[in-house]
């Protein structure tokens, strides 16, 4: 077990280091510096002054070491477009919003997915099973940005227009932009969670069906255990194990999903800054946020893996073999 955790920790650190190096090298491959894109006629003296100010005149290897040192101190660099705002400052302000959105989507997605998957398996080939298949296929086929746009149109314009006509009020039950009270979070969280609902439903259903046909379930029934107990203690408990593994992968999916959901619903989260930094060619911000995302995703996947290793006794066996 210890060896397994240690292996995973080392692997994660290597991954993070690789991402940092790769990002750094890629950003330096872009011709010119942030101040000298090649087509400006800036005063060379001022340019040299600016570059020296940001340490851009030093050799790349030295710059890399300095950058690594800064990262260790939690300094992700300065943004070019948002003058006088450090990347760390942006992360500190925007990340909690993204985390909030992500957690809501995750909790909703996991609960809805599990319930739908379990119900589908317990009522195999009945209407709830068909419904779960339809939800799973729609969730996988229709990307979040298409669904989000459609929901914005239907709820934000048609539905609220209807409310306005009937009740003569501007009150919006499901606001489709900004991030303020609970009402504002419902639609974005739902849109973000749809992919997770689909994959969890699908996985839980097949896992449940697999467990339900096992001999130990027959044994449990023949011992005279109540149906409720068989389902809760024997079936769900065993079927849920493989589903836990995909929660780790879900974190990455939710992060990328938030790029588009935050833009769509005007939520001031990290994903919005990330996408904007790319379109605005704010290299330092892109670089800082890429590294931050990579560290966040890799570490949370590590955490999920370790927790999973603690829950599932079979994992430690694999670790021992290595």
């Amino acid at each position, binding site marked *: 077990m210890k060896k397994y955790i240690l292996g995973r920790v080392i692997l994660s650190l290597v991954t993070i280091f690789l991402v940092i190096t790769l990002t750094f090298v890629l950003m330096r491959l872009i011709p010119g510096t942030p101040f000298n894109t090649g087509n400006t006629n800036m005063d060379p003296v001022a340019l040299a002054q600016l570059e020296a100010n940001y340490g851009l005149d030093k050799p790349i290897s030295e710059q890399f070491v300095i950058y690594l040192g800064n990262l260790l101190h939690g300094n992700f660099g300065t943004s070019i477009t948002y003058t006088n705002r450090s990347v760390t400052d942006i992360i500190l302000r925007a990340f909690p919003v993204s985390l909030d959105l992500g957690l809501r989507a995750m909790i909703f997605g996991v609960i809805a997915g599990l319930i739908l998957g379990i119900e589908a398996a317990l009522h195999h080939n009945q209407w709830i099973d068909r419904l779960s298949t339809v939800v799973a296929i729609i969730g996988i086929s229709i990307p979040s940005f*298409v669904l989000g746009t459609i929901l914005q149109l239907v709820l934000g314009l048609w539905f609220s227009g209807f409310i306005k006509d009937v009740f003569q009020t501007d009150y919006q039950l499901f606001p489709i932009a900004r991030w303020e009270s609970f009402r504002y979070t419902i639609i974005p969280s739902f849109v973000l969670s749809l992919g997770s609902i689909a994959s969890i439903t699908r996985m839980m259903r097949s896992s449940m069906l697999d467990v339900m046909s096992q001999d130990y379930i027959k044994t449990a029934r023949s011992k005279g255990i109540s149906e409720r107990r068989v389902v809760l203690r024997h079936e769900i408990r065993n079927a849920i194990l493989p589903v836990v593994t995909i929660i780790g992968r879900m974190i990455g999916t939710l992060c990328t999903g938030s790029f588009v959901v935050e833009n769509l619903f005007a939520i001031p989260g990290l994903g919005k800054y990330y996408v904007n930094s790319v379109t605005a060619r704010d290299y330092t911000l892109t670089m800082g946020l890429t590294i931050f995302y990579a560290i966040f995703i890799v570490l949370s996947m590590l955490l999920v893996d370790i927790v999973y290793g603690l829950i599932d006794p079979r994992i430690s066996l694999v670790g021992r073999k290595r």
Partner: protein
Amino acid sequence: MSLLRAAPANTGKPAEEKPFVKDFTPVPKDLEASGRINRKSLTYWQGALMTLRRNHAAMGGLIFIILVVLIGIIGPILYPDYMKTNMLQTLQPPSERHLLGTDLLGRDTFTRLLWGTRTSLLIGFIAETINLFIGIIYGGISGFAGGKTDVIMMRIIDVLVAVPQMIILILLQTVLSNGVGTLIFSLCITGWTGLARMVRGQVMALRESEYVSAALVLGASKWEVLKNHLLPNTVGPILVNYSMSIPGAIGAEAFLSYIGLGIPVPAASWGNMLQEGAAQFPGSLWLFFSPAILFGLFMLAFNLFGDGLRDALDPKMRR
């Protein structure tokens, strides 16, 4: 004690109720008929094809996919003017002249949809075909070599898998110029890892299986083992993986183009058409819904087909 007393009482009864043998007339033995097998023997592929044909959803999906592919090939030849702007006819609703209306610059949406289909399909098929080859070769080498080489190669995959693909895509779109080439290249950086792992697993399982050692002992050459055992065992899962990964690549293109990082505008793709359509909200809905419906149906068709293919190629699922 109670058991012993109960035993004789039980054994007496069934003997009386047993029917006599003479009550039955034996059927004349027809050895030839009993030896005959009525069901035609099917090879693995014939069986798989039969299961797939019976699955209406999967067949419907396949027909739709073929249709869309044909549209992507033939459409742009018939309607070449996808960039022609017409400032007098901007944002026209669907009509006889413009089947799906026109966009902000007066370009014909129908023509652009045909070209967009071609772009999106090209990205999906080319990127995933490259991934297919890299995955098979990498996984094959890793599985056959075993030992230290295998450990190192698998650790490399572990590292690559940990980096989210979307971050690599976005990063490379920033550094390199936007376009089809960059997109395909970035999809190929980590896209092959799942397949490589699977192929390696199959090869490893095969190396240790007894029927392969038996074949080798009986004098089969390595090539024969590869052809008769490895290929039939891996082609199924590889095909399923391939068919499931194509919608993933097409979806990634749409996602990137939608947030403005994928295919730049004079060219058409499903993603940037969706983005242009969404920008016109809530007016000119045809601009959004024509690519959205085609895109959604295509993804649906591919998923249905992929599911059907997986069921058909899995002998355990065969009925």
